[in-house]
């Protein structure tokens, strides 16, 4: 086997898998409860946790080079740039009280 490549254990895979299934059940359950403004943040938090589990363990970022970690994070950072700078427009429309500004 080539040096430096981490082979994930079956036990770890199964634990992550179970965690993902449990979180899926949780997100369905919590969606049926009325949490007011909190429904979406909770759903997103659960989704992010699941995505992180997949990225870190199944995709092996945990055992990868710092460069790969940077690349993996940078995609999401750039997405946030798009969201923040874009919503910066939508959420502040009408602040002046002038139509169209």
């Amino acid at each position, binding site marked *: *086997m*080539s*040096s*430096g*490549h981490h*082979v*994930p254990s*079956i036990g770890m*895979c*199964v634990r*992550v*898998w179970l965690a*993902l*299934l449990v979180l*899926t059940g949780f*997100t*369905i359950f919590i*969606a*049926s*409860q*009325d*949490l007011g403004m909190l*429904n979406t943040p909770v*759903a*997103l938090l*659960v*989704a992010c946790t*699941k*995505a992180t589990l*997949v*990225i870190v*363990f*199944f*995709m*092996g970022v945990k055992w*990868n*080079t710092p*460069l*790969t970690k940077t*690349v*993996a994070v*940078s*995609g*999401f950072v*750039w*997405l946030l740039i*798009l*969201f923040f700078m*874009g*919503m910066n427009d*939508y*959420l502040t429309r009408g602040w002046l009280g002038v139509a169209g500004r």
Partner: protein
Amino acid sequence: MSNSTNPVSAAKPHPKLQSHFFSMDQQLEASTLGMWVFLVTEVMFFGGLFMAYIVYRNMYPHAWVEASAELNWKLGGLNTGVLICSSITMALAVRAAMMGNRKQQLINIAITSILGATFLVVKFFEYKAKFEHHLVPGPHFDPSLEQGMQIFFSLYFVMTGIHALHMVIGLGIMAYIFIQAWKGTYDAEYFAPVEVSGLYWHFVDIVWIFLFPLLYLLGAHGA
């Protein structure tokens, strides 16, 4: 950059070592880095759609809840489970490839493919139901529904449609590496194609992890 030449491959280069690389390690690192960079572009690709989602959900919160309630969250949830199961078998396939275990590799790739196909079949029935209920945007859209719902369904079809397209491509990749694995192409030195295919498959799973709560579960609590 690691230039440490594997003593074995220095003596006799691995048959799968391409001539412009120094070593199998360098080749593998290039492949995985390449896949990660590609996945960044995929994140941005779906990102444009998520941007539209955020804008319109913020604009039409009520229509979003109404429209989401029209989706079948049970089928969506089933598909989420199916994809999560396919992710673990994919991870196990990569593990088997790293260890040079051909048989386990084949079994896991096969299960992954079957689960992927299951996902698409379920998706097909969901789409069919939407057509029957006039929930497809355009001239045949149910006119009694409120404004904003048409945008939701436009986004729903584009997002899940492009996701499904990625699944189809993923199945093609699975078929390819299954055949290659059958031929015994991969070993403990050369498993980069299996590993990068796995990265792709997991990514498609992650997209669905976000799509499921954002599209299917908004109407569940009846706000």
